[in-house]
């Protein structure tokens, strides 16, 4: 993966020099495509990927991920961890104001967190902080207007990562965001853009926050200086990709994300459109149901694993943008070391031995998949062919996405070509796969000892000790093969040449601060 990192560093370097050569212009409206309308304006409540992305322009948290997926200060200027990792003290950055002009104080931080942690709010991740898993926020204290103290029940190596995560934004909102009756009314944050107009089913327009006070440092991920050069950004709902492509060519649209191979080829003839791509954090996996009568045999699962050419599969599906990754967490993660590079190699003789050991009678296997996400289907088709070459007949069962997802939750499949959305810490990735079966059939691996180790990694603050735990889990996972991790997703975007400064990053969410229009 090193060469990929090097490549992205080079790209970043090149674009940085381009930025220097070409001074940003102020003004104008950039138009960005979203596949479906946003679900609401309250962070982490009615949410999906597009909703999160837009709200990240309006709101900021105490901390944020940078391009290297490391947690950096955002509304916090600095933090200290004391009391053996149980107390986090954040100093707030001076001079930050909300969209309504009110200055940011520790009281706003407490108000926001109290709202997210209140079960009545319906925020998606209260269980991260209420003791349901292990971690519990016992108190949030505000000794002075610029200081916030979080007291935890146990030491946590995960707290900052959770605080910076993309899905359940720990947004610091102003209390005027809520009406007198306690219901959410309008999003008032500290971000570089504020909500302009939401035309339901059509578009969401954000307008520049002229009072914005940027964090120090260059723009990096969701961290660093988030300066708005544009007057406004219009996020347009365009469900049909062919229409979006047409708008991009005609110059009516500036950014379309998640371009597939066909669209990329199509856009090669368009002189005014540039396609960017790089590895992302979402990951594809082949789930092998360990409770299925055939797949419960470890030899059978390993036979499937050794029948697959993982490098070839990754190359075909991601067009070379992302390689084989046997671990569920990103190859860009600091915890993705030598051990995580170890996976399976294709060995058809070994497959024969394993099939014989499993007493496989030749009954075709069933691979479930769906087409909402193109990559699930492509992966299933290629794996079906690879298994066929290895003497394992497999049939595809192509479902509609809600049915596929429902079967995932109910454990109602033999093999499933599936994928998970972005997680930023290995523990969060493992918690998607490992857990007690009696709690939910959606957990793929029910090993109690390994499950216990994930909690140790969650509580551990020493990176070396965490690495050792992740290495053990990885080796055991390769040996047991409850799930075959395949590759990280490709982040891609087609950008009209009128928009400068737009860059994709591992977090994948479009960022319109730091971009400007040349025309």
């Amino acid at each position: 993966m090193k060469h990929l990192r090097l490549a992205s560093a080079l790209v970043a370097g090149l674009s940085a020099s381009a930025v220097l050569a070409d001074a940003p212009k102020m003004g104008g409206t950039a138009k960005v495509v979203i596949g479906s309308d946003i679900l609401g304006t309250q962070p982490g409540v009615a949410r999906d990927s597009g909703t999160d992305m837009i709200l990240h322009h309006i709101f900021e948290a105490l901390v944020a991920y940078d391009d290297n997926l490391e947690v950096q200060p955002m509304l916090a200027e600095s933090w200290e961890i004391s009391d053996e990792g149980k107390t986090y003290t954040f100093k707030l950055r001076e001079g930050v104001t909300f969209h309504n002009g009110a200055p940011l104080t520790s009281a706003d931080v407490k108000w926001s967190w109290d709202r997210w942690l209140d079960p009545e709010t319906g925020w998606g991740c209260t269980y991260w902080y209420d003791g349901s898993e292990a971690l519990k926020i016992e108190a949030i204290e505000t000794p002075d207007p610029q200081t916030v103290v979080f007291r935890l029940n146990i030491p946590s190596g995960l707290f900052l990562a959770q605080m910076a995560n993309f899905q359940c934004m720990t947004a610091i909102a102003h209390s005027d965001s809520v009406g007198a009756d306690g219901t959410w009314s309008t999003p008032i944050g500290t971000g570089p853009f504020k909500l302009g107009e939401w035309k339901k089913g059509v578009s969401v327009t954000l307008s520049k926050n002229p009072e914005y006070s940027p964090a120090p440092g260059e723009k990096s991920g969701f961290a660093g200086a988030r300066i708005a050069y544009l007057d406004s950004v219009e996020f347009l709902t365009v469900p049909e990709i062919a229409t979006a492509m047409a708008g991009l060519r005609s110059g009516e649209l500036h950014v379309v994300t998640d371009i597939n191979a066909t669209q990329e080829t199509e856009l090669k003839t368009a002189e005014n459109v540039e396609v960017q791509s790089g590895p992302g954090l979402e990951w594809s996996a082949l789930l092998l149901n360990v409770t299925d009568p055939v797949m419960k045999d470890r030899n059978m699962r390993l036979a499937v694993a050794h029948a697959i050419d993982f490098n070839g599969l990754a190359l075909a599906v991601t067009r070379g943008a992302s390689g084989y990754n046997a671990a569920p967490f990103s190859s860009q993660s600091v915890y993705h070391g030598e051990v995580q590079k170890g996976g399976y190699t294709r060995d058809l003789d070994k497959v024969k031995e394993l099939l014989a050991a499993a007493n496989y009678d030749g009954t075709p296997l069933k691979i479930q998949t769906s087409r909402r996400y193109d990559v699930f289907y492509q992966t299933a088709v290629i794996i079906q062919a690879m298994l066929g070459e290895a003497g394992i007949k497999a049939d595809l069962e192509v479902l509609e996405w809600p049915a596929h997802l429902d079967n995932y939750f109910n454990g109602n499949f033999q093999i499933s070509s599936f994928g998970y959305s972005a997680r930023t810490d290995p523990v969060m990735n493992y918690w998607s796969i490992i857990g007690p079966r009696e709690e939910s059939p959606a957990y793929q691996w029910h090993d109690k000892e390994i499950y216990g180790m994930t909690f140790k990694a969650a509580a551990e603050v020493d990176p070396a000790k965490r690495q050792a735990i992740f290495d053990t889990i990885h080796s055991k996972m390769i040996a047991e093969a409850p799930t075959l991790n395949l590759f990280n997703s490709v982040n891609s975007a087609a950008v009209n040449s009128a928009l400068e400064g737009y860059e994709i990053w591992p977090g994948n969410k479009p960022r319109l601060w730091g971009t400007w229009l040349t025309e």
Partner: protein
Amino acid sequence: MLRYTTFRILAAIPTLFLVTILVFFFIRLVPGDPAAVLVGDIQNIGRLEEVRRELGLDRSIPEQFFAWIGKIFQGDFGVSIMNQAPVLDTILDRFAVTAQVILIAVLFTTLIAVPAGMIAAWRQNRLTDNIIVVSTIAAMSVPSFWIGLTLILIFGIELGWLPAVGYVSLFEDFSRGAVYLIMPVAALVLGEVGGVLRMARASTIEIMRRDYITHARAKGLSEAAVLSRHAFPNAFAPTLTILGMIIGSLLGGAAVIETVFTLPGLGRLTIDAISSRDYPMVQGILLVVAVIYVLVNLITDLLYPLFDPRVKL
């Protein structure tokens, strides 16, 4: 006529009741769980049961049905599972968009198809007729999404005359709104004109053979007068039925055109609601669409005697 109208409206009640039952149970027969779609793959797997409880999906299906139907009688269609927006308000908003496009498209379809069909009938089996019939068949054979995308390619990208994406309501800004409507309306007209034209042509041919047409010609009326005064009123009645049916089906959601042209209409709402298993929204839409069908058919039937005096209501 009042008695007839009252009778028709009352007769619609059992139909609508049947629709509610079918809609409610059929959407639940489709595999998939709205709570799962809502939760997604977020790693809190236990949240799924919580969401199911919050949405009332853990109750028995008859219980859910009576709770829903009880509220419908009070005019409460519930809220969307996906974004908590009131179902009826959302449907009416989206319906207004679809109605703008459809009614304009049907108006243009009528203005083109009826005279063209009558001319084709009048010049039956001659060159004009052949040209009209062949181009009609060509237009009917091309799928509407293809027409839509081709229009976008030509007028949006190559010529750059019309916007390829976006939507502005006519009520918000009439002239800008009209520009955004040109391509979707054109695509719909091209798709629908064939059926109406063929009906207008067939019924005119039949009328033109009647004795009263021969009589009209014999008394020295011009061909234009024969067509407009005698053939049109008699030939239009069957065409009206077809128009009614087109309006009904398109108002129920011109989903393909709405998707291609990014119009926030009822068709797109339906597709989104089905693919996220948003039960209250799907139920609400189908019920509203059924009511629209009943009303459009009723209006068509009430208009019938205006064109065909033999029909008494």
